[in-house]
């Protein structure tokens, strides 16, 4: 897998400390992500644990899925505040967002296991910002992330924001996850 140059789509806004129980509540962890039909189900329940008023900021009470979709949400990019993905180690969390069609998350910073899982599993790109982007963008705005320059353009308002560089994990993200990265760097012999 090579990285896309641009990630473009509608954005869904959340606040601080969005924990893994909000991203995918424990009762849905009985699906096995190793089975493709069950993997799809995680998309349906992604973000179902977010309390109504905290979903789809700044207004709130905006559902992540609209009435017409079952598994894939109309949103492509997610923005959160501090400590996104805190709580449990469940890889089902980035899987649920991936199955729902989310390609990138932008947050001030992440809880470390969610970050590792997102990167090592190759499910989505976890970008960080040195400021609170979640207060500057509205749910439903059309965003364009330009990877080469680490910038976000809000096409709805014309504003431009800068992301932090991906840093240490960039080679793993570029490779598509831990396994392809390990093959590329000689840690694993490539699959025949």
């Amino acid at each position: 897998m090579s990285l896309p140059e641009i990630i473009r789509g509608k954005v869904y806004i959340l606040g601080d400390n969005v924990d893994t129980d909000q991203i995918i509540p424990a009762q849905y962890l009985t699906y096995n992500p190793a089975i493709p039909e069950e993997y799809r189900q995680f998309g349906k329940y992604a973000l179902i644990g977010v309390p109504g008023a905290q979903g789809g900021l700044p207004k709130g009470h905006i559902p992540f899925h609209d009435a017409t979709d079952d598994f894939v949400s109309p949103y492509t990019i997610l923005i959160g505040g501090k400590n996104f993905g805190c709580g449990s180690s469940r890889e089902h969390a980035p899987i649920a967002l991936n199955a729902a069609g989310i390609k990138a998350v932008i947050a001030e910073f992440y809880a470390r296991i969610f970050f590792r899982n997102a990167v090592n599993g190759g499910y989505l790109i976890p970008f960080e910002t040195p400021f609170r982007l979640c207060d500057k963008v509205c749910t439903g705005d059309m965003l364009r992330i330009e990877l080469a320059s680490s910038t976000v353009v809000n096409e709805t308002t014309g504003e431009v924001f800068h992301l932090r560089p991906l840093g240490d994990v960039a080679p793993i993200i570029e490779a598509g996850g831990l396994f392809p990265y390990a093959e590329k760097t000689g840690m694993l012999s490539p699959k025949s």
Partner: protein
Amino acid sequence: MAGMTLTEKILAKHAQRDRVAPGENIWVDVDVLMTHDVCGPGTIGVFHKQFGKNAKVWDRDKVVIIPDHYIFTADAMANRNVDVLRAFVKEQNLPHFYDVGTDRYKGVCHIALAEEGHTRPGEVLLGTDSHTCNAGAFGEFATGIGNTDAGFVMGTGKLWLKTPPTMRFVFHGELPPWLMAKDMILSVIGDIGCDGATYKAMEFDGPGVYSLNMEERMTLCNMVIEAGGKNGVIAPDQVTLDYVNARNKLGKKYEVVKGDPDATFEFEKVYDLAKLKPVIAKPHSPDNKAFVDELVGMRLDRAYIGSCTGGKITDFRAAAKILNGNTVKIDTFIVPATTEIAKNLKTETLDGKTLEQVFLNAGAKIGEASCAACLGGPADTFGRLNSAIRCISTTNRNFPGRMGNKEAEVFLASPLTVAASALNGFITDPREYFA
């Protein structure tokens, strides 16, 4: 050149290096990999997909599989997941499997790991559960990972880790009888915030820590993840070695590692236990700290004593002291973490009654050893909050929906505070019972 912390020394040793510095990415050798029924099937899927259908785990003696999350449920999918574990154990001929419905069934993985001799000083233990940091109480590096990482470890025995800087928390004095390790760790989390240790190691030190038994030390390390910590760790002493050696039925050799006296800590905070009061975390975050005496009188619907951090034998001894001879005013659920603890409830006595009798006489309900309602789980889970009620609990998390209903309110506190509150039906300061 400055010395290394305990965490840095363990990681350096497992990377075959003389030294590592915070921020360095290193490949480490893993001593024990643990998985359970919720993340095991996904991990096994990654392993098979990446290494092939006929692949073998890197070392069958180093893989430990402990079903514990969704056990006593009619949920067919949950039961199917335990079958996935069984098939894998059979295929790989794995010796360390604690299967449901057998004499080997244990319950909550983190306490099972300790009881069954899988936690040893100086080692690296990774598990597909965020509370794997629990094992840092034994002076080892232990942290939670996801399915992809665990699948990688299964095939290679290695994983890349970023060396964390260490924050040190020093406790002076000794715990008075109305305080427990839960009050200590809720203080720390409240002080530094639920992201205060993100990407960092948290080392606990000082006479107030070394006076604790291993169960209480586990309570401290278990909840470092609630501050975002990568791992929690306590240097091994004689208390550690006595516990580990008594449980080391596998006869494994291990090497005690200690931090250098001139190690560098990124942060240090000192506590005096003589000045600490009972602590509680209000909804909906473990860092939403208050002192119990600020909330006395708040009406409750339920009390829950269980989980890896709050369902150990020491937690039940503490609760029994308060419940003995009294009657609870609200639904009170008792869930031993493991089957060994469940057996002990039937044999340990207080004033001539078993702990089980104390709890039943008080009107509490006792469930079977497992994670149960700590993380909600399927709708028929014992003690699950199926409606928007208010619960006081000895568990480790109170994010929205953690114990079931997302409008429910969960207050986290020590077993002493939970037991005292169960008797009144409102939040109660346990010091009342130590007058």
